[in-house]
Structure formats: C-alpha cells, structure tokens
C-alpha cells in the first residue's frame, strides 16, 4: 500500500473516498428515513442524459450534472405531486426513460463516452479540482443536513403531524431532494451511477439494523461507509475491478451479513 501512496492519483482517490465515505452514508440515514432511496437511484441514472448533453454541447460533464440532476429531481417531484401514479411506478418510468434516452445520446456522440466509467466511476482519474468540488459539496451538504435534520425526523415520523405543527413539509422535502440530487451529481464522477445508490442506501440500511438511536444510526452508517470504501478500494488495487463496483459489493456483503445475524430489527420477514 505504501508504494501506491507515492502516486498523486492514488492519494486523490483516497481523499475522495474519505470525503464520500462519510458524507454519503450520513445523507443516506435521511434518504432511508424519508423513503426516497429509489428516488436517489433515479437521480443517479439521470446522469446518462447529463453526460450525453455534456458531450453534445461540449460542456464539462461535472458542471452539466449539477444542472441536469436537480432539474430531473424537481421534475419527478412535480409529477409525483400532480399524478395519482404510485411513486415506484413513476420512478421506474423515469429511470427507464432517462437511461434509454441517455445511453442513446451517449452512443450518438462523435466520440462516445465510456459507459463503464459512467456506471462505476473513475476514482483513479480524479483531479484536485474534483476534490475541491467534493469538499465543497460535503460542507454545504452537512450544513444543510444539520439545519433540516429536526424537520426531516418529524416528517419521517409522521408527515401530517409535522405539517400540522407548522413544519413547511413541502419546502423541506423539496430542498432535501434538490440537495440529494446535487450530492449525487457531484459523486458520479468518482463512484459512478450504480455504486452511488449503494453508498447512499446500504450503510444506512445496515446501520438501521445495528443502532438503537438516531445518533447511533448516523455513527454506524458513517463507519460502515468508510469501511466499505476502504476495503473496496484495496480490492480494486489488488484486482482489476472498478473501485465503485468493489465498494458496492463490500457494502452489500456487510448488509447481508448483518441482516442475517440481526433480522429482528425489521429488515427481513420474521
């Protein structure tokens, strides 16, 4: 490991892992609490369209995703509020729609983008500017979470009660979803579309089985996120596997292990 650390790209990747490994699992606690896990996944898939548009317009993909991801999130939320379609149906429509359109767009480009890099990220290709972007997103995201946490806990507990007590439920939910979409957009370059959901949902879901308090869940989630990223990254250095994929597998193995040992907390049918 020590000899790997002399390379800038490895050090950059490790910094990125550290920034992502704490923030995403913390955000994930609220993602599972608000039951918007699949929404986050749908936003991640909108990166196909973002990447295609970036290639078409000659823009930076990272910058383009910062526009397309929140736009997509707002559009889905708008449809959710105005149609009687169940949320899961609407999200499948959205995911398949943006994935199909985005992949078509990417393949029509004169210099097609690497779908593998989009799906599993390119953490070893990160530059210092990407790290600053990640750090900025982490700090803004954490500040937002601290501010929204009491309202999100109340909405997660009982939405109507929160509304009756004066929590501006729709505003809080919209700000949260836009923040979530921006966080997803920033992380795509590093970990890719598929592992983003793994990092958002799996450590928090595992933590939910282990923790006995909300604070405990946050601590467990951050710890498990870091563990998944650390072990996943080592596997990726050892074997020719994209780091995003190995991180997702480690997070899933941790979840399955804990769910099998501690099914009593409600994740599995008793």
């Amino acid at each position: 490991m020590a000899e790997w650390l002399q390379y800038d790209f490895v050090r950059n990747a490790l910094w990125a892992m550290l920034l992502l490994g704490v923030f995403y699992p913390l955000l994930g606690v609220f993602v599972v609490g608000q039951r918007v896990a699949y929404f986050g996944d749908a936003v991640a898939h909108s990166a196909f369209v973002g990447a295609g548009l970036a290639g078409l317009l000659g823009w930076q993909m990272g910058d383009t995703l910062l526009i397309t991801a929140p736009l997509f999130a707002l559009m889905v939320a708008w449809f959710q509020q105005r149609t009687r379609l169940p949320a899961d149906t609407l999200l499948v429509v959205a995911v398949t729609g943006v994935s199909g359109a985005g992949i078509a767009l990417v393949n029509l480009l004169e210099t097609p983008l690497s779908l593998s890099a989009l799906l599993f990220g390119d953490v070893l290709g990160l530059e210092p500017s990407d790290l600053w972007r990640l750090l900025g997103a982490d700090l803004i995201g954490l500040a937002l979470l601290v501010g929204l946490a009491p309202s999100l806990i109340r909405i997660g507990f009982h939405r109507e009660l929160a509304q009756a007590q004066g929590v501006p439920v729709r505003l809080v939910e919209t700000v949260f979803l836009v923040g979530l979409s921006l966080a997803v957009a920033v992380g795509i370059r590093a970990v890719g579309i598929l592992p983003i959901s793994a990092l958002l949902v799996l450590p928090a879901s595992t933590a939910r089985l282990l923790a006995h308090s909300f604070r405990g869940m946050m601590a467990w989630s951050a710890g498990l996120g870091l563990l998944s990223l650390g072990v996943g990254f080592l596997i990726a250095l050892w074997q020719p596997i994209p780091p995003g994929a190995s991180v997702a597998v480690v997070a899933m193995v941790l979840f399955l292990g804990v769910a099998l040992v501690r099914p009593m907390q409600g994740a599995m049918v008793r």
Partner: protein
Amino acid sequence: MNPLIRLSDVRVVLGERVILENIGFELAPGETVALIGPNGAGKTTLLRVLLGLLPYHGGMVQVLGKAPHQMTRADRKQIGYVPQALQFDRTMPLLVRELLQAILGDAFRRREQLQQVLQAVDAVHLLDREVRALSGGELQRVVIAGALATQPKLLLLDEPATGIDLGTRLHFYDLIEELRTAHGVGILIVSHDLSIVSRYATRVVCIHHRLICQGTPQEVLQMPMMEQLYGHPVAVYHHHEEG
C-alpha cells in the same frame, strides 16, 4: 372572549364527493367540545380542515382568529394536535427523547425538561426507550406529551386515548380537564366513547356529513338524537359526579 374556533356553513368536497356541508359551531376558551358521529361522518376531515391540511370549499373557517392557511408557525405552536392513529416506519432507530427534541426544538434540550414533559402523561420511564419498541398506547402517550408541552391555547384531539389502558386514559382526561378549568384551554375532541364525552365535554356537536345537533351532553346524548345520528338505538350512561 373571542372564540378559538369559529365555523359557519362550512362545505368540504373531495373529488366529486361532498364530505361536509352546513357545518357551523364555535369553541370558546375553557370549553371542551366533543365532536361525535358514526365512522366516515367527516370528523377527522373537519379536524384536518381546521389544521389547514385540507382545503374547504365554502363557508367560513377561523382558528385563533385566522383562516387556517393564514396561520403562522407561531400560531400553530398554540395548537396541540394528536392524530387518530400513528402509523410510522417501525424500522428506524429513534429514541423517545430524540423524537421529543425534534418536535419541541431548542427550548427543550435538557433531560430534566423532557422528563417533565413526559411526567404529564405518566411516561417518564419511556424517555430512553426506542420509539419502534413502544406499544400503540405508549406511543400515543408520547405524542400527547409533545402536544401538551408547549402549553397550547387550543387542543385538537382525534380519538386521543385509543390503545391506552383505562387508568392512563382517565389520568389523561383528568389532565385535559385541568388544562380547561385552570388554564382556559379550549379543547375539540373527536371520540366514540360516549361515556367519556358525557363526563368531560361541556358541549357536544354531532355531525354526519352535516350538522345533526349540538348542545350540552345532557341535551344531545339522548336516545332519539343518538338514534338519528347512528341509525340505531344507543344508550348513554351519564356521569353525574362533579369535577
């Protein structure tokens, strides 16, 4: 004294269905008004209209002197609300004290304050328990404690004692009675328990999509009136003791 709730000729429509019409009554400080009627009569809908959670389509609705949608967050702090049934994600680890802190905000950070909040419903022992491990009745007590903590002017209670054992239920209603008599709190309570209504309500409003009757418990809880409201004979045993 200005009424806390003022309703006149209220009409509520959901889709094509008229849920409520011709609803009118007032609730003054220091009154406990029981809202009774059969299942599906529109009682919970009316509470949701009062809280601004549902729109109304005719008539006048005033809560604390304002239309519900004009109420500020400060106004809402003066209203304690306990919903009918608490359905929530039972897989989230959340301690009772964490929930109360989220509901009550920075003014209730200290442990002793939270203990005091739970003391009102005899539930101090629940402070460090996980919310997901509470029984329905225990959870209802925590929510009631949260509703009472900010010393509201108006309490809106939708079947608040469902799932609570008899002793705690009576303790709860005695507490509500004390809030009414000593502090002039106005209380609107939806209840199917007519003996509780007879004992604690100062006035009863009967609805079945429209206003059927209103008056004192002795006037309203009579066999012919109840038969008209529920569609079959209902006998009510009135409590005659005071306080």
